[in-house]
């Protein structure tokens, strides 16, 4: 579904990605782990071009989205993204946050968008919050709404950028549960996270990044159980 070829990226003189090759299959849950500064968030943000790649190529559903001619807005409609800081729209209600993009971009009626939103809200246990404003919600609730907002566009893939890092510990579980359910339903997901337990349990494949490259990849059992690379072993010994 997503093919990344020799992806490179620098911020000024600071080289962040030094040639990444990756392949993400439909229905696969890929978890990207690694020390901070390893380039994993940048890698994820390059996938929907919130960061412009400095070199290399990204294919999404066989289309080269790094190509200048590609309409990235149309591509992004099929790639949902969830941010560390939630980034809900504070001047809109929960329902408006969720229905805004489907109504404006997919041209569906408000009634249909509302129905779609309510079903999704139900599935994350927040149906009663539809008229609330983001400022009235807890962090965990905000992040669940942010996931629902992305899902309302019916994306083909979901990108998660450290979705639990800004949460108080007691709220991490409720967000991870939602993500787990999503994975079980067959959603293709790319997740950057520090939650190793979750990565091991939910991930189909683990990418370990360090210094702007993918150092090691494999199933959770392979990477967590018997890491081959020294840097992977070093990292895992610190976080586990």
């Amino acid at each position, binding site marked *: 579904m997503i093919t990344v070829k020799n992806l490179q990226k620098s911020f000024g003189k600071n080289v962040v990605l030094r040639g990444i090759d990756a392949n993400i299959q439909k229905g696969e849950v890929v978890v990207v782990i690694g020390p901070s500064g390893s380039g994993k968030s940048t890698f994820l943000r390059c996938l*929907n071009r*919130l960061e412009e790649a400095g070199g290399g190529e990204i294919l999404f559903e066989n289309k080269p989205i790094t190509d200048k001619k590609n309409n990235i*807005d*149309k*591509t*992004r*409609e099929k*790639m*949902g*993204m969830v*941010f560390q*800081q939630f*980034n*809900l*729209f*504070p*001047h*809109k*209600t929960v329902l*408006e946050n969720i229905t*805004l*993009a489907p109504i*404006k*971009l997919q041209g569906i009626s408000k009634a249909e968008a509302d129905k779609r939103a309510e079903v999704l809200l139900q599935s994350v246990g927040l149906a009663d919050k539809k008229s609330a*404003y*983001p*400022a*009235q919600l807890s962090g965990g609730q905000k992040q669940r709404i*942010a996931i629902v*907002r*992305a899902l309302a*566009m019916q994306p083909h893939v979901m990108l998660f950028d450290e979705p639990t890092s800004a949460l108080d510990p007691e709220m991490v579980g409720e967000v991870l549960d939602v993500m787990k359910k999503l994975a079980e339903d067959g959603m293709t997901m790319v997740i950057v996270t520090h939650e190793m337990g979750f990565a091991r349990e939910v991930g189909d494949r683990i990418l370990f990044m360090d210094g702007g490259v993918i150092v090691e990849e494999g199933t959770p059992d392979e990477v967590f159980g018997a890491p081959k690379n020294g840097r992977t072993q070093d990292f895992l010994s610190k976080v586990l």
Partner: protein
Amino acid sequence: MRLKKITHLMLALLLTVLAVYPGYAHAEAQNASASDTPEKKTIKVGLSADFAPYEFIMTVDGNSKIVGSDVMIAEQIASDMGAELQLENMPFDSLLPALQSGRIDMVISGMTPTDERRQNVDFSDLYYVSRQVILTRAGDVDKYKTMDELAGKPIGVQTGSIQEEIANGIPDAQVTAVKSISDVVSLLLSDRVDAAVFEGPVAESQVKNRAGLGIAEAVPEDSDTPMAIAVEKGNTGLLTQINSTLERLNSENAVDEYIRQANEMNTGETAPGNIFSFFWKYRGFYGDGVKYTLLLSALGVLFGFLIGLLIALLRLSGVKILKWIAVVYTEVLRGTPMLVQLLIIHFGFATAFDIKFTVLQSGIITLSINSSAYLAEIFRAGIQGVDKGQMEAARSLGMPYGMAMRTIVIPQAIKSVLPAIGNEFVVIIKESSIVSFIGVADLMFQANAVRTLTYSGLYPLVIAAAIYLVMTLILSKLLNVFERRLSAGDNR
């Protein structure tokens, strides 16, 4: 959703204003003696109507009207030409620029054909020769028996007038030049100057109508001041017609008679001593003025808002040339006085590029672009203050840049800078008063008209101040309500 509502509201406002606008378009200054006979040609005569008995404002049946001996001459010229007379009242020193920029056809305003003026405009034959006198406070009349006694004294005159030149000729005199005759009298009565150079009949009408004034014995040398009618340079056709009318009037000794009649008319209004009855008596003036001030402010705010937003977006667009344009626009408009901008737009454009805006258009354009520069900086601060994640979240959902800006970023930006925007709106209402300079009959202009009419220095201005205050307070209140509405998402 909410921004859409605001846009609709603004659009509705704009349409309303545009629908109303033609109604105002004619009545630029005031008292265009307009009966709409389209086939009849109109002739526009400029004058500065605070120069009784030559030209001054009177209330006739509750309506203000420009009258005086110059007006009677103008009526004669118009009727000889078979044209409709339209009077354009404006400050004295705006008359010649208005003539040169082709906004008026002639100036009949007690104007003396000096050599300097002759370089820029052409003059008719003389129609009257008046003398100059020294106006002073009643108690000081005996102090100034000769011109020598005025040496080194503070002297008041009207800007750009022949009296200013005379005053400048007095040795060591400290000359203060102000915009209107009533300002000169106020200077005198408030002891800011000790004497003022005045046209003889004008001084007499001031003495007649205002306590505490007197005419000194001293007489300026070469005090005979001829008056002539100014036309655009090279307009000999019009000049010939004017001169033939003047010849006829001279042969009938009509001008002296006009001045006598005008002096009789100018009995001075007996203005009520109580400020409330004073206001009630002249409410028509203030009402007319408020209409223009509101129209100017509303359009200034509306266009200033839209242009300011556009400039802020250009500045943040990341395209170098657009950013550069926005920076230059903002810096130039913030860094130059609004009065200079107004005069350039109204007079400069007309003479240099033949772009002739009406006084109202010039006023609206100046207010809009001036405030847009300030608002652009406010918007820029607001937009930059919105968390970057908002734009990213909107874009990640597939929204194009423009839509994300419009629906997500700008509403939050505006909400956060609303108090600053409110400030700027209040400033626009107040600053709109400078358009009186080019002759828009706004609140300030009308307050000055009432001053001239009543020979009263305080009440007309206090009333104008009170009306400005009421308008700005109402606006602040409305903005508060709006702010509360927008803060829906803030309650925790």
